[in-house]
């Protein structure tokens, strides 16, 4: 089948910063993203788990964003401006997409 190259960006970010990140993505002209729940993790600042938590403070979200290559830099800058002082991981992977006209 006909596929097209694109970039798959996955941003793991503190839940409290999620709406700030998605606002930034929108202003960076990103047409879409998908948010996956995250259950726990570990890093230099220790372990965490969402089990039994009520506060949004300890927890992260995973925002997945598929974009055309030419928009990548704008997106990364937007993401960086939010992640900057915060906990978070940003990865970019090459991928192929169906229906490229959608991105």
């Amino acid at each position, binding site marked *: 089948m006909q596929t097209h190259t694109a970039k798959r960006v996955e941003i793991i970010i*503190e839940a*409290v*910063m999620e709406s*700030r990140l998605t606002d930034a993505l929108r202003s960076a002209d990103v047409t879409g993203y998908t948010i996956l729940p995250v259950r726990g993790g570990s890093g230099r*600042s*220790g*372990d*965490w*788990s*969402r*089990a*039994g*938590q*009520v*506060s*949004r*403070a*300890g927890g992260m979200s995973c925002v997945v964003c598929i974009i055309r290559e030419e928009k990548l830099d704008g997106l990364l800058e937007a993401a960086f401006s939010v992640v900057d*002082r*915060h*906990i978070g991981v940003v990865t970019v992977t090459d991928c192929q997409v169906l229906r490229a006209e959608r991105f």
Partner: protein
Amino acid sequence: MDQIIALAAENLLSPIILFFVLGFAASVARSDLSVPEAVAKAMSLYLLFAIGFKGGAGVAEHGLDQTLILSLVAGVLLSFTIPVVAFYLLRVMSRLDVTNAAAVAAHYGSISIVTFVAGSSVLQSAGLASEGFMVAVAASMEAPAILVALWLIAKNGPGEGQRMDSALMREIMLNGSIVLLVGSFLIGVITGADGMAKIESFIVAPFQGVLCLFLLDMGLVAGRGLRSSKGVLTPGLLAFGVVMPLIGSLFGLAAGLLIGLTPGGTTLFMILSASASYIAVPAAMRVALPEANPSVYLTLSLGVTFPFNLTLGIPIYLAIARAATGG
């Protein structure tokens, strides 16, 4: 003193405390007992809904007390004052830097609604009435401390500068807990005894049981927190976590006495002042002060001060309030 000991002993053997201890022990022993996140949230929605509505229905029943406004104002003032005391106490008692000290201070200026709920249920066991509007006072004390913390940093800090923008301001003022608590309170005021009759068997009868399960969960979370924050708690911080609520409670006592609240109301004011936030403020701190170390403030608030208040604090405040008001 005897009274305090008797009360404390009775309190220590109440189901809610024992379930907290069970959760804590299970977590420290690394049992896989856990409450799903959605269930913990459901219980907290239930508690806010119930306590808010009951408070409102209480106000509807007893008429709008003149002291309501005074209490709200006092609550806001305390939430502005206590963090300053906490901040300088911390700088003396511990080696926390400005940012972390301010973050911790914000927690102690704000309030813990579960401590408030646990206190209400102790009052009820003791047969003491209290002003229904105290839940509104609780809500009024959530946010101001956060602003004070940021101001303390701006004043004392070298400071990259913390992030306080209108978005965060809105988040703090309209955070889910406040909205549900105040909303339920208002609906309680509006619908009064009629409304109460309709939903009483949902919000009154099962309340203690839900509280037990919720405290089980808090024990689990607190135990996990303590386990993963070894080394964070210096002796100075530990002492602060016990001394600060006692100091805070005295501010609440003063407010209660000045306004002329009932012994029950005064006790609740002491509990609010003594308690430290572990839901709303931590989230705000992550946004505004990402450099502050969450394990410091969470461990202190949830791992030290919350259990202290739950077990010893509440009986002490109750005894003092009774002695002071002659109630």
